Every structure is written in structure tokens, then in C-alpha cells.
């Protein structure tokens, strides 16, 4: 039987390349072909086929000499939030259309150093602000998944293009970024694995800033082992990011199969939100059973400030965004809309260059930081952030990891989205606390909703202990035996 190259995990493709069952050029060509056949998903803002093939050719030469590196010849998608030297980087915004960074982000440089092939830049919510990939200037992304009514579904956001690409076989793995859930929520919606590592594991250098104290890069992959391989390649101490951590980066792949025997798993009652759907609740119960059957001890815990995480986030993230996005002024790079005075030039450029959601957040951020309101909003929110963090610290005295659902609902149809910004914000209600507390968390596809759409479970770990997430995630993944979209598609077309 001929191997379907698009179905392979990163680990399987790596081993296939090493054994010379196929070449990096063949693998890359298969992905480029699939990308061409799935343009209606709008997963990529920019495809870079020539560069991909050029790198694949180099990788084949290295592999022939037995000098393959960790990601040699493996075709990846890069969220269009990571600066890539000489290649357009837009952050999904009109204001950066045509911007070609004169430097490379640390994350993409690390991946290149391991021999990865870049297929292109994936779509995202504008400046990573959104949970449905509908705020991109370059159009919304469609999930490859369909409901019975046939409506186009969101892949989630903000890393929606990355998740759609990995799920639909348009990249073997992808980079994402997560400020409030932007890796984990799309992973949950598309039946892929997504991990947000501990704040500081991955350098933010060259990653377009949204909210600097919350932003963290991480991978979206086909399975937990692939997430471990990707994160190991992405993570590094970087003197160019003063918040990057110099702690040792473990060999994540080694721990993936170690199981959870004897580990204590916390179940926070505060995550049992009013009106949480039955299918989400029963999947959570199922997850508890799976971990128990694998030898984990289940412990009930309290995270009392959980309900304040989302409003806290919606003070801090817009505040930081309003400061970070002040740099887009039409002077040094990106869009310029002329004006008679310098102020008019700024105002015209920013009004035309930023989309509605970005403008809303800049305005809220400007307001909460303005004279007279700083203490009432910003300082207050910082203090509650500390309380949320302390909740987790107390919990991790008693448990090794925490299990929750990733999202309160499965993916919704693009035409069902709410016009109320706050209703859209609720997508992140189960993921956002982790960003406030700077902790690592993984979403693993674990089952299906009533409508037959993917649902993920989230594991949260103590700071700098991604290892427990890979161990627990692998147990959930094995027990769930989740059927990804690619496999469903090929079995239904038989």
C-alpha cells in the first residue's frame, strides 16, 4: 500500500525521511498540492512554494549524508504573526500589508536551524485578537469540518489558519500563539493538539506583539508526540527577549509515553460553568475516568477567582495592546494614509489600517490606562491577576496537573457569530486563566459533540512543567482514539 504522505504525523514523517522511504521534496510537493486543492479554506495568507522546495532539496542532501536535524525536511506552516525575513508578515492586518521584516523571529529561526521547511504564512485574527478567525483583513478561515446542515464552520482563533491547515493536511504541524486561548481553542475546534507552554519558554522576539505579558508561542500538531517535538525545537533562552527563561529545556519527546500512574489530577469545580453543555460535561467526566483508569488519583480542587479571569483579561490585554499597537503610525513601515498634519496622518492611517475589533480594544485599553482610571481598572486587574495566580499555586501544592474542558462549545457556524463583543469573548472563558497565571496548558482532541464536531480536553500544569502535560495528554489521546478529519475524509470517500 502506498503511504498517504498527508496522513503521517511529524514523528512518522521524520522516520520515513530518515529511512529514505520518501524524500523531503516528495513530502513537500504533496503538501503544496493539497494546499492548492484547499484554497477555499483560506488557511494561508501567503504560500511560499519556491522557498519550500528549495529548502526541501537542501534537506534531502543533508539526509542523504545522514546529517538530518530534528525537523529536517518537515513541511510546517507559520502563523503570520512571526516575522520572517524578506517574506510578507501581516498579523492579519491591513496596516501591515506588504510589510517585509528585515529580520527573522527567534521561533522561526530555531525551526530553520532544525531543518524545517516553511510552506507559507497562515491566516489569523487581526493582531491575534479574536476567537473565530473572522477579524482577519485577509478574510475568515473555514474549518475543514462540516456539520450536518453543511454550514461553513469557524476553525476557532486566533490561530485559525494554523489549526485548519494541520487538520486538513495542508501542513504537518504549525506554529501558533496564545494570549487568551488562541492555540488551545482552535485546536479543540479542529481536532488537533495545541500547547501553550509556560510564559518564557518561547522567545517573543519577532512575534508581533498583542499583549506582551500574556503572549506565548506554541505548536499546533496532529498528536501529542508531535507537540513535544515541535515545542522542543521552538523553545530557547533568548537574550533578545528579557522575559524568556534560561531554565533548562527538557527532552519533551522522551516523557510522552511515561503515563500518569501515581500522578494527582485536580478537578476544579469552578470550571463547571452554569449552562455548560451536556456533551462537554460528559466528555470531561470521561476524561476523568480515562486518567483514573491509567492510574492517576483524582482530587477535587478550588480555583475561587476563576470567574474573574475573563474580565481581568479584558482590562489587561487591551491595555497592553493599546501600548503595543501605538507603533503603527504610518511613518516607518506599513500602511500610510496621508493627512495635512502629522496627527491627521496618524489618525487616518490607524482608522483605515485597523479593523473594528482591534480599534475597540485599542480604545478600551486607552481608556483603562487614561488619567483617573488607571488605578480603578489596570491596577485592580493586576491585583486580581495575582489572586488567580495564587489560586493555581495553592492547587499545585495538592495536585500535579488539572483537567478541564478546553472550550464551552464546539465550533460554531461563521454566520452564527454574535455581534456582541462580550459574547464572543466568552469563547476563552476556560482557557484565559492559564495565560494570566503564565502556566502551561495543552488541548487534546478527546471526543465529539452532539453535532459530530471535535471537542478537546485541557490539561494545565505547574510553571515550567510541560512534561506532565505531555504524559497526561498522551494518556487522553490513547484512550480517546480520536478520529481526525483526514482519516474521516478518507474512510467516507471509500
Amino acid at each position, binding site marked *: 500500500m502506498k503511504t498517504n504522505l498527508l496522513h503521517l504525523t511529524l514523528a512518522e514523517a521524520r522516520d520515513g525521511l530518515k529511512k529514505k522511504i520518501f524524500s523531503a521534496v516528495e513530502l513537500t510537493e504533496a503538501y503544496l498540492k493539497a494546499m492548492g486543492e484547499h484554497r477555499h479554506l483560506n488557511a494561508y495568507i501567503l504560500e511560499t512554494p519556491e522557498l519550500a522546495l528549495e529548502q526541501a532539496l537542501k534537506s534531502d542532501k543533508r539526509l542523504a549524508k545522514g546529517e538530518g536535524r530534528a525537523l529536517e525536511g518537515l513541511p510546517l506552516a507559520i502563523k503570520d504573526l512571526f516575522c520572517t525575513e524578506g517574506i510578507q508578515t501581516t498579523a492579519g492586518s491591513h496596516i501591515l500589508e506588504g510589510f517585509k521584516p528585515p529580520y527573522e523571529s527567534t521561533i522561526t529561526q530555531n525551526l530553520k536551524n532544525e531543518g524545517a521547511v516553511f510552506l507559507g504564512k497562515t491566516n489569523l485574527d487581526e493582531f491575534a485578537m479574536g476567537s473565530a478567525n473572522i477579524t482577519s483583513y485577509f478574510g475568515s478561515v473555514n474549518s475543514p469540518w462540516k456539520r450536518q446542515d453543511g454550514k461553513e464552520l469557524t476553525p476557532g482563533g486566533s490561530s485559525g489558519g494554523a489549526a485548519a491547515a494541520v487538520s486538513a493536511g495542508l501542513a504537518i504541524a504549525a506554529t501558533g500563539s496564545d494570549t487568551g486561548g488562541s492555540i488551545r481553542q482552535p485546536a479543540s475546534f479542529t481536532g488537533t493538539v495545541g500547547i501553550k507552554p509556560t510564559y518564557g519558554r518561547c522567545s517573543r522576539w519577532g512575534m508581533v506583539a498583542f499583549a506582551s505579558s500574556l503572549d506565548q508561542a506554541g505548536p499546533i500538531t496532529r498528536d501529542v508526540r508531535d507537540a513535544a517535538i515541535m515545542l522542543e525545537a521552538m523553545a530557547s533562552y533568548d537574550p533578545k527577549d528579557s522575559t524568556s527563561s534560561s531554565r533548562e529545556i527538557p527532552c519533551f519527546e522522551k516523557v510522552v509515553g511515561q503515563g500518569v500512574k501515581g500522578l494527582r489530577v485536580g478537578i476544579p469545580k469552578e470550571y463547571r460553568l452554569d449552562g455548560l453543555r451536556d456533551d462537554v460535561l460528559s466528555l470531561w467526566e470521561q476524561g476523568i475516568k480515562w486518567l483514573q483508569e491509567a492510574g492517576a488519583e483524582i482530587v477535587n480542587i478550588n480555583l475561587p477567582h476563576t470567574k474573574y479571569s475573563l474580565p481581568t483579561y479584558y482590562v489587561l490585554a487591551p491595555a497592553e495592546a493599546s501600548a503595543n499597537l501605538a507603533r503603527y503610525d504610518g511613518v*516607518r513601515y506599513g500602511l500610510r494614509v496621508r493627512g495635512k498634519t502629522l496627527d491627521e496622518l496618524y489618525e487616518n492611517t490607524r482608522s483605515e489600517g485597523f479593523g473594528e475589533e482591534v480599534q475597540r480594544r485599542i480604545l478600551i485599553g486607552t481608556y483603562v490606562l487614561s488619567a483617573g482610571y488607571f488605578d480603578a481598572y489596570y491596577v485592580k486587574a493586576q491585583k486580581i491577576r495575582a489572586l488567580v495566580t495564587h489560586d493555581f499555586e495553592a492547587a499545585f501544592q495538592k495536585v500535579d496537573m488539572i483537567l478541564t474542558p478546553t472550550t464551552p462549545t464546539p465550533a460554531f457556524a461563521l454566520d452564527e457569530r454574535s455581534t456582541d463583543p462580550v459574547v464572543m469573548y466568552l469563547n476563552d472563558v476556560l482557557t484565559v486563566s492559564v495565560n494570566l497565571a503564565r502556566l502551561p496548558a495543552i488541548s487534546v482532541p478527546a471526543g465529539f459533540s452532539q453535532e459530530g464536531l471535535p471537542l478537546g480536553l485541557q490539561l494545565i500544569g505547574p510553571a515550567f512543567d510541560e512534561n506532565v502535560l505531555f504524559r497526561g495528554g498522551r494518556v487522553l489521546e490513547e484512550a480517546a482514539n480520536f478520529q481526525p478529519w483526514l482519516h474521516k475524509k478518507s474512510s467516507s470517500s471509500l
Partner: protein
Amino acid sequence: MSLDQKTVKRIATLARIKLNPDRIESLQHDLNRILDFIEELNEVDTSQVDLLGDGTFSTLSFRKDTVNDGGYVDKILSNAPEVACNMFVVPKVVE
């Protein structure tokens, strides 16, 4: 706390975003909706919280105070909308 239209316009000026008059009302509505949502934070007693001791993440690394980057004007100007004599061009600021 509720924002009036005058405040919405003032924030937009501070943020250097031009607001067309037809957008002010819907923005006022959205911003007030978000502020109502944030208002919930007032329920929390934060009088005992000390923001200084932040444990795991409080140590930032030091580096030598030296020049270790720079010297590539062309690269920096390569994306500029308008350039003259190795400088960014903007509308006249001083009459």
C-alpha cells in the same frame, strides 16, 4: 460608569484613531458593554494583594550595557512609505 459620546471622541483622539461620526453611537454601545463586563471586578477584595512579590517570574536577567546591534539604515528604511536622505518623511511639524 458609562461613557458618553464626548468621552468616546476624547479616547479616540488619545489613541490617534479617526472616528467618523456615524460610528460613534455603535462604538459607544460596544465600549459600554465591555466596561459593564469589566465592572464585575469591583466585587473582589484586593486590599491585601501585594503586587511586588511575584515569585517564579520576578527575576529578569541583566545584560551588559553595550551596543550590540545596529548599523543597517537601509534595512530599517526598506519598508518606509516615504524616505529622503536616509530619513523618514512626515508632514511639516514646525511652521
